């Protein structure tokens, strides 16, 4: 049948098109595997927890232990009371917890200070400290809510015990031995005190942002605009590689190679416009975020400019690397897009780094996206200055240098 002839012919064409195969099969498989690795913990049970909460225990009391046990019993939480430093495992320290927050690997940490249990036993106010990352306040608030719930229960239990003790002493001291004991009134009084105690926990939670929060709450735009800007500036990869491939296919490269222009000048001329487009792209996206949606930009615009220049350089570098490795235009749309989306998913553009498992957080560090995101969020949400983001800028320039070096090594002009 002619219908089948056409169908079979087109199937053959599709199967011979590697770009199409990548888009149809490799891309969704990549999303399934990577996103499952990233978000898996959110969907699994209590034994494999999504949100990790470092807890610094400076108090050895039974009440402190109860707080830990109760927190551990909450599904979706994993309590970390220890920290790995080098090859050693030690008790979690405040400095260690703060470092994890600054890297964006955790959203909040709990500190139970010395004297916590004693204060509760004495019926006094007890204090705990919650450190939180202002760049990830939405998630930090989830943690804070859970911590408050546990502390309310623990505080309530402590206060109930205290109240019953007081009542027993009252009964013993005021009544003569033969006097009838009014059990109802005693119960009512005890319940009343218990109810009160459950409503007003004696534990106060002191919340400390590990960096200054800029004005009000960090909103969804402060989190998403940098993430998606980074993801989409890397679409330059397809443009850089595509324009180089077009020059090769149209024969214009050959004409330019016999013209009085050096190869470095030729390549730089191919990259510069894309680099500029990258700068304009991020500027427009951030401007829309700022002026239309009220996204905060932090206190150091120069720092944002530095990160933007570095991330655009890395994106164009990856573009020429792809151009050096592929042979056809179809391979660009396949391989290029696969690389762009994979790096974006791994690098925290789609899913915040903090909800990723530790392993994937370490993998993220091998993407320029993670460093760019860290740089932007340090300035926008953590009040950092341009000096503070120099490490992230240096890492991005390092990525760019590696991309350019490998690309130039593999690049063929004809």
């Amino acid at each position, binding site marked *: 049948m002619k219908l089948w002839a056409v169908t079979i012919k087109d199937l053959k064409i599709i199967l011979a098109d590697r770009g199409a195969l990548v888009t149809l099969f490799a891309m969704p498989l990549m999303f399934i595997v990577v996103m499952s690795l990233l978000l898996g913990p959110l969907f699994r049970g209590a034994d494999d927890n999504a949100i990790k909460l470092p807890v610094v225990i400076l108090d050895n009391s039974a009440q402190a232990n109860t707080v830990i046990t109760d927190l551990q019993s909450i599904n979706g939480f994993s309590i970390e009371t220890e920290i790995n430093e080098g090859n050693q495992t030690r008790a979690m320290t405040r400095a260690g917890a703060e470092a994890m927050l600054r890297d964006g690997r955790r959203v909040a940490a709990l500190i139970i200070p010395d004297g916590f249990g004693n204060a509760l036993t004495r019926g006094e106010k007890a204090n705990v400290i919650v450190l939180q990352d202002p760049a990830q306040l939405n998630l930090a608030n989830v943690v804070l809510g859970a911590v408050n719930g546990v502390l309310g229960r623990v505080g309530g239990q402590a206060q109930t015990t205290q109240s019953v003790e007081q009542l027993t002493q009252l009964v013993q001291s005021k009544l003569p031995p033969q006097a009838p004991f009014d059990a109802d009134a005693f119960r009512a009084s005890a319940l009343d005190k218990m109810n009160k105690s459950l409503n007003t926990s004696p534990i106060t939670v002191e919340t400390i942002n590990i960096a200054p929060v800029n004005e009000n709450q960090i909103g969804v735009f402060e989190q998403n605009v940098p993430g998606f800007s980074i993801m989409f500036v890397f679409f330059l990869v397809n443009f850089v590689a595509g324009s180089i491939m077009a020059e090769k296919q149209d024969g214009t490269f050959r004409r330019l190679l*016999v013209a*009085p222009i050096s190869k470095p000048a030729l390549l730089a001329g191919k990259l510069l416009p894309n680099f500029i487009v990258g700068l304009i792209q991020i500027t427009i996206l951030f401007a829309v975020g700022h002026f239309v949606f009220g996204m905060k930009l932090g206190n150091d615009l120069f720092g944002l400019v530095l990160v933007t220049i570095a991330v655009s350089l890395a994106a164009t570098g990856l573009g020429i690397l792809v151009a050096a490795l592929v042979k056809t235009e179809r391979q660009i749309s396949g391989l290029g897009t696969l690389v762009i989306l994979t790096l974006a998913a791994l690098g925290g553009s789609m899913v915040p780094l903090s909800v990723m498992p530790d392993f994937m957080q370490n993998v993220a560090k091998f993407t320029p996206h993670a460093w760019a995101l860290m740089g932007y969020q340090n300035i926008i949400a953590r009040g950092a200055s341009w000096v503070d983001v120099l490490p992230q800028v240096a890492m991005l320039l390092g990525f760019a240098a590696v991309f350019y070096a490998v690309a130039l090594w593999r690049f063929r002009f004809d």
Partner: protein
Amino acid sequence: MSNLVEVKNVTKKYGEHVAVNGVSFAIRQGEIFGLLGPNGAGKSTTISMLATQFPPTGGAITIDGMDVVTDAKKLRSKIGVVPQDLALYPTLSARDNLIFFGEIYGLRGRELKTRVDEALEIVGLQDRAKERIETYSGGMKRRVNLAAGLLHRPKILFLDEPTVGVDPQSRNAIFENVELLNQQGMTILYTTHYMEEAERLCHRVGIMDHGKIIALDTPKNLIALLGGSIIHIGLNHEPNGLLAEIRALPNIKSAQWQSEKLIVQANGAEGALVGIANAFNTAREPMQSLEILKPNLESVFLHLTGKHLRDQ
């Protein structure tokens, strides 16, 4: 006339494959020199080496006294290249394409504008200069391709198969352009596998096959090598005894069996035909077809290599 280009014993190898094999020739100042040969003969590779695109594996090439390898940078502004494949930006207009290539050759401002206008005038495309190249016909694209090689007024122009896929009108326009440029003093290296183009345009022709130059002279002298007429006689089978008999006839210069044909080179067709017809009658061998040709570069090529320039 002094030599502008000197090619001495040039070889180009790609691994085991030898694309150009010990080629030597010279191009004189002010001449149109043709490289004629079938596809894959090594013409484009030769022109690419002359244009400094890549160095020869062996031998030496000088243009205007400069070496194409060591003086490549200086040479590039003296040579114009019109590649076989259209080397243009399809989404830009003809004018924008020419402005870009002019800038690459260091032209700026008023001079650039003048040269672009000049080049557009030469190829006759001023009227449509603002339209995107992708909307042009194949022939018009070829003409812009040619214009892009002229902007910097090169001393020598390399034209690599400039008429492939071109309508007759554009082909004639290109011929006229080439002749005009040559009259203005430009030296031109013209590669083609159309023998009639080489015959019409070229002062001298080098015939290439399998990476070698197998003959080099003016078209007239090359054709005179054969002289007289060429007679093609179609047969069902190789005429074994008949071949020797025909060779022994008067006025016959050569006779050979090629591609299911008996190819006879004669001093004059009329005198030879009577003898050939008699020989066939005596042998009771029927002729399937008979064709009398005037010698041209095609038949020269056929004579030299035993095959046609183009697939037939």
